[in-house]
């Protein structure tokens, strides 16, 4: 088992970061009338961990006994039936899923599952929770229709089905849905907090950490706890005992983006653009999301640019990222950004150096 999973705290008492939030959650779920919850925060900040611990707090150890199912829904849409298939993770008390995976049919999944759950409400209400919990991941990726169809359902069935929604950016969750939840912001852990977790894992694994080693990993993690734990484990695999100046390996794809950045800073030409296209393709083929590529590329470029250009380039990065969301072929927009950069940078070089 990877360390990220092995050392994921199981209960609210055991968390190493977000202790205050965990304490709050405990109070929140003691009563029967807990409102719907919306967890949001950057990737790798610990949302999932808290949600699993909350379920555990509500339902005890039985929340851990989950089975993975490939569920099929047949939805009657008047003239035709729509087949929707989705993987769910469920215990006797909760169901977890990722409805945005159903693509433009996400609406049907959301509609059906909640009604289904409301019908199978647990009967026992003495001491036990009189409701089931539905965990929906990546709600920021849900279509507008699906979010709309959550609205009234969240009210209508609130006595028998409680929702826990999880997402990265709550700006993308409609106001109407946010207004129906208690919003829990899960901030990215600070570098010190990350160091604490790494040292804890180091101790459990019986590792000797040279001074400053954990904090070097933390600095490179961009405040993502998951990322930090992953690179810690990679270091362990690459070389142990750790040495003082052991390099913390960057992610492969980041190396790659950094190469793209230096190559377009060096030469601005159609030929170079063509070469870069190949590299961008390769990143995409390896499932690196295009918006992440663009952000990283900007990050690398900003390190090298004059402040005047920084404004201009970040403007275009935002411009093309927006287009990328609206369009379908990510590669077009990534390439357009690179071309734009080349033309601006070339203009700048000519102006400055003649």
């Amino acid at each position, binding site marked *: 088992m990877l360390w990220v999973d092995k050392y994921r705290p199981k209960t609210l008492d055991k968390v190493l970061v977000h202790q205050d939030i965990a304490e709050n959650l405990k109070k929140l779920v003691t009563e*029967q009338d807990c409102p719907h919850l919306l967890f949001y925060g950057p990737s790798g900040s610990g949302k999932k961990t808290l949600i699993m611990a909350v379920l555990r707090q509500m339902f005890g150890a039985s929340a851990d006994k989950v089975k993975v199912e490939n569920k099929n829904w047949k*939805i009657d849409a008047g003239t035709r039936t729509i087949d929707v298939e989705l993987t769910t993770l469920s215990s006797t008390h909760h169901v977890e899923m990722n409805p945005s995976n159903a693509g433009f049919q996400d609406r049907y999944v959301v509609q059906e599952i909640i009604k289904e759950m409301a019908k199978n409400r647990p009967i026992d209400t003495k001491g036990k929770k009189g409701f089931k919990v539905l965990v929906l991941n990546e709600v920021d990726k849900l279509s507008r229709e699906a979010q709309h169809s959550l609205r009234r359902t969240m009210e209508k069935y609130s*006595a*028998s089905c409680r929702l826990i929604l999880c997402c990265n950016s709550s700006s993308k969750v409609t106001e109407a849905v946010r207004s129906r939840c208690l919003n829990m912001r899960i901030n990215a852990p600070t570098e010190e907090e990350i160091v604490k977790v790494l040292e804890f894992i180091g101790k459990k694994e019986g590792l000797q950490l040279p001074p400053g080693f954990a904090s070097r990993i933390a600095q490179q993690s961009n405040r993502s706890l998951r990322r930090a734990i992953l690179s810690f484990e990679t270091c362990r695999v690459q070389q142990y005992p750790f040495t003082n100046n052991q390099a913390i390996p960057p992610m492969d794809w980041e190396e790659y983006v950094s190469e793209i950045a230096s190559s377009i800073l060096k030469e601005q030409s159609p030929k170079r653009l063509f070469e870069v296209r190949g590299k961008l393709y390769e990143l995409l083929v390896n499932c690196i999301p295009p918006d992440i590529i663009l952000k990283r590329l900007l990050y690398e470029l900003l390190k090298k640019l004059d402040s005047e250009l920084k404004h201009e380039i*970040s403007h275009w990065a935002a411009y093309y*990222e*927006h287009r990328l969301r609206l369009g379908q072929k990510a590669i077009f927009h990534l390439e357009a950004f690179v071309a734009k950069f080349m033309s601006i940078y070339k203009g700048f070089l000519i102006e400055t150096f003649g």
Partner: protein
Amino acid sequence: MAPLLQSSQPWVEKYRPKQVKDVAHQDEVVRVVTNTLETTNCPHMLFYGPPGTGKTTTALAIAHQLFRPELYKSRVLELNASDDRGINVVRTKIKNFAAAAVGSGRQGGYPCPPYKIIILDEADSMTEDAQNALRRTMETYSKVTRFFFICNYISRIIEPLASRCAKFRFKPLTDEVMSSRISYICREEGLNLDSKALSTLSSISQGDLRQAITYLQGAARLFGSSISSKDLIRVSGVIPGEDVQALFSACKSGNFDLAEKEVGSIIAEGYPVSQMLSQLYDMVVEADDVSDEQKAIICKKFAEADKCLVDGAGEYLQLLGVASNTMRALCNMPQEFSFGN
């Protein structure tokens, strides 16, 4: 099915008014509707307005006051965005429901008028085709059915439907109304809110009573029965003033890297950028040392970024774009870029 436990309902549901007269702040609506209930002469209705202002509540209350509980099911059809409301459903389900004949006559204190009610909640998410299909249905069965449309955005309802209805705008609740409803809930739940906390709660929920009640319940569970203004801010997701100020100052400094760092930390803290924009907006508009022209340039970009966010653009890049533009405006850097074209 086991009986629903009142106690297992979140407070928003527990304190949903059951009678039209208890709906707060929507006086015009309440007056007209109460009249209607007395004469049982009900027009088609269209309720519109922002979230949490009492639209669904009012529609359900009317229906419950018109028909006694045994009749309710056969007389009231509630369809919301979670039901399929494509053209077919409109044609068949609504038709079937509307077509069956009804009797009339007052029964046991309920007016029981001789028509059925079809509540189309969240009607703004119906397709235009489905809405068009409704026009005919409305006409055909106009004697025996009344439609209640509910939506946030009236512009998404096609004109021919809207023009067939009596329209009611639900206003965002004022601070006073909000406070009095909240105080009532506090009394019922045995909570203690000082006047500062009350006014904070009203201002952070911006006229959305549902949001206010949810915050209140959250705060009550987290911080016990004495709730301060600070507790409410903590549950509400409002960004602390210092953090907004920090970004604004970074923009004033003219140092791009500083602003980029602030943007990065706002994202890492998980603050929603839409929220940041609205708080930054307030700060800019109120700033004395920013000229009107600068304000115009800054706010224009806010609008663009807001649109991009709605389209699904990434939060970091949008906020960075806003910060960069704000900086250029505040520091009188050229608005035109020099190299791109």
